[in-house]
């Protein structure tokens, strides 16, 4: 199969499965078709990633599509998050179907938007054309907005409006950033059809206008940063994450935020190469990263709703990832590692929160006590995932946070180290006290035990095993892919002393 066909199929298959799912009158079948579409896409995606690892960057459609190590790494994270979340959606919505809480129309809304949202996120990753990358990012906003409202309530409508408006405005800024980037390349002797290709811009950075490139980056950072949930543009995030059904919250936190951050990282090497590697863009990333960590940590201390707590935790972790990118050097590698770790642990935590929410009938943490007794599997899942998220040894989140800290120490960034430690310590305390009571507190009298099947066990065990293994041992292919991905951001072929 040609690379062109392979890359095209990554977008076409999820689109088609979303469409096909609309033609069946069975709720279960509708749900299963959607999940099957994701799994088939994942299989083709794995082939594409393998080709990138073994053959280097692959291209298609006159170079408009490509998969380089940076996009391949993010694609791997996406496929993992969507694969797990699709299985979870069968369990989560299956529970509601058994109690007849969901109508066919609601299931169709979910299935009709779920896989196309996946297609839009994949389009963001495989677009070499930065204009198409923007189109894909805006499409994710539009396609996912109604996913928040699968259960139409006053709160979910409010969350959807805030999400739609704030992210659309943010993405409009990113559009201007993309235009300014194109303008900076206006005088280059390039075919207009090829001028917005990232690979072409990277090949001509010496001829780009630095002032316009800097302006483009500021607009892109604010625009895509809004979608990534960077503070202070994060205000839509706690509402949307907490009011969306849990499988949707999982892909929001587990990947959509990373997709937006990925867009910013496509701008960074262009800006740095154009401005003479002065670290100008990295300093901005460091500032936004630290501010996000600190702001999220203060809000985490005052949360009473489990899903809102997890949402603010996402702001914190996106801040940590951004900080890692901002520190640069070994920090870039660590930020990529943290991306994977956060996505897995946050996906699991939203799964557990969702199932426990169905059991308890609430997300209020003071009424979710003793979950290990009520549902040993999901109780353990929420406890372990919260421990992972606050960076407890031996989970891999600890390793990536440690690597980011080490990169900051090695770079003699004393202020950054102090603020980073302050932020993550606050989050540690803020989340741990809730984790202990949710897992081991005394359950209320009127809560029934939850039914458990093999899928529950798989959905808890799979991410936990990966998080534990990666905390103790790094597989060579993943290490190599992350090194190459970091090299793409650094615009080098190797990054020296990365761990």
């Amino acid at each position: 199969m040609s690379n062109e066909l392979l890359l095209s199929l990554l977008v076409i298959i999820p689109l088609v499965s979303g469409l096909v799912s609309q033609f069946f009158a069975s709720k279960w079948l509708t749900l299963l078709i959607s999940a099957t579409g994701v799994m088939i896409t994942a299989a083709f995606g794995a082939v594409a990633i393998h080709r990138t690892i073994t053959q280097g960057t692959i291209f298609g459609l006159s170079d408009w599509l490509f998969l380089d190590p940076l996009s391949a790494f993010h694609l791997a994270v996406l496929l993992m998050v969507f694969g797990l979340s699709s299985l979870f959606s069968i369990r989560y919505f299956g529970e509601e179907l058994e109690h007849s809480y969901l109508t066919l129309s609601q299931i169709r809304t979910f299935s009709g938007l779920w896989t196309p949202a996946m297609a839009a996120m994949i389009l963001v990753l495989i677009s070499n054309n930065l204009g198409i990358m923007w189109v894909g990012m805006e499409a994710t906003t539009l396609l996912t907005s109604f996913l928040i409202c699968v259960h139409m309530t006053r709160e979910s409508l409010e969350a959807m409006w805030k999400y739609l408006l704030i992210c659309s405005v943010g993405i409009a800024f990113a559009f201007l950033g993309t235009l300014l980037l194109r303008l900076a390349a206006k005088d280059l002797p390039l075919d207009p059809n090829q001028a917005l290709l990232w690979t072409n811009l990277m090949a001509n950075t010496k001829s780009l206008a630095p002032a316009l490139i800097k302006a483009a980056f500021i607009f892109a950072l604010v625009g895509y940063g809004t979608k990534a949930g960077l503070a202070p543009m994060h205000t839509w995030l706690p509402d949307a994450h907490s009011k969306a059904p849990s499988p949707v919250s999982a892909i929001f936190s587990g990947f959509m935020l990373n997709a937006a951050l990925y867009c910013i990282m496509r701008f960074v090497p262009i800006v740095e190469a154009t401005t003479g590697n002065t670290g100008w863009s990295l300093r901005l990333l460091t500032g936004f990263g630290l501010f996000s960590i600190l702001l999220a940590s203060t809000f985490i201390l005052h949360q009473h709703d489990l899903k809102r707590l997890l949402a603010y935790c996402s702001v914190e972790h996106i801040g940590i990832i951004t900080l890692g990118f901002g520190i640069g050097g070994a920090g870039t590698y660590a930020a990529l590692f943290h991306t994977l770790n956060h996505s897995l642990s946050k996906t699991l935590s939203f799964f557990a929160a969702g199932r426990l929410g169905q059991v308890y009938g609430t997300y209020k943490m003071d009424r979710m006590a003793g979950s290990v007794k009520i549902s040993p599997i999901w109780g353990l899942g929420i406890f372990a995932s919260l421990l992972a998220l606050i960076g407890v040894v031996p989970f891999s989140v600890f390793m990536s946070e440690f690597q980011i800290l080490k990169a900051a120490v090695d770079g003699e960034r004393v202020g950054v180290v102090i603020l980073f430690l302050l932020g993550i310590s606050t989050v540690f305390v803020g989340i741990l006290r809730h984790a202990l009571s949710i897992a081991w507190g005394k359950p209320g009298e009127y809560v029934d035990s939850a039914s458990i099947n093999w899928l529950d066990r798989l959905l808890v065990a799979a991410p936990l095993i990966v998080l534990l293994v990666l905390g103790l041992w790094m597989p060579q292919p993943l290490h190599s892919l992350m090194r190459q991905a970091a090299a793409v951001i650094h615009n080098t072929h190797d990054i020296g002393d990365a761990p």
Partner: protein
Amino acid sequence: MFDFLIVLVILINVRLLATGRIESLISWTAVQGVILGVFALYSRQAHLSVDVFIIGLGALLLKGLVFPAFLLHTTKIVVTSRETEPYVGPIGSLLIGMVALVVSLWLGTRLPIPGTDTSHLLVPGTLFSIFTGQFLIISRKMAISQAVGFLVMENGAFMIGVGTLYYAPFFVESGVLLDMFLAVLIMTVLITDMNRAFHHIDTHELSRLKG
């Protein structure tokens, strides 16, 4: 001619800042959309091919007719058609707008566009449009006014795009217009849903989710 069209866009922005009626906001945005469609076709007349023409005409029809029609239709469905208590009144909005215009003109001198064939008003006009859109979103309470703000912002970005690039790939431009179309469609559907659920579209009252 370029400068004249850009000045018209700027004047419409000023008019938008001064108005409180939602129908008036939508109507003036429609006029701005038509002007931008003309601007797109005029600025690229020397390089006019079939796809460039389709994009220009598509932008004119969407921004000048379709989007305003969606929004007017929604206004008729929902309860209110007037911003009774915006966070900032017309006089305050105008004064802030004047300051923003001066800042935009200054920034325009700081951000030169490559080449000598573009109007020096283009960057200030774009920045002022983006400010106007943002300000409408922040200072108005009605969801429809905020949707108009989003359109005005997008108009600003569109203006600098077509005003400086003689050609952008058809798939990129049509993708952008399609996204815009879907965004406005979804916003109007959502506003109707919100009106059904809350019996109002005052975003100031959307305060259940906090903290």
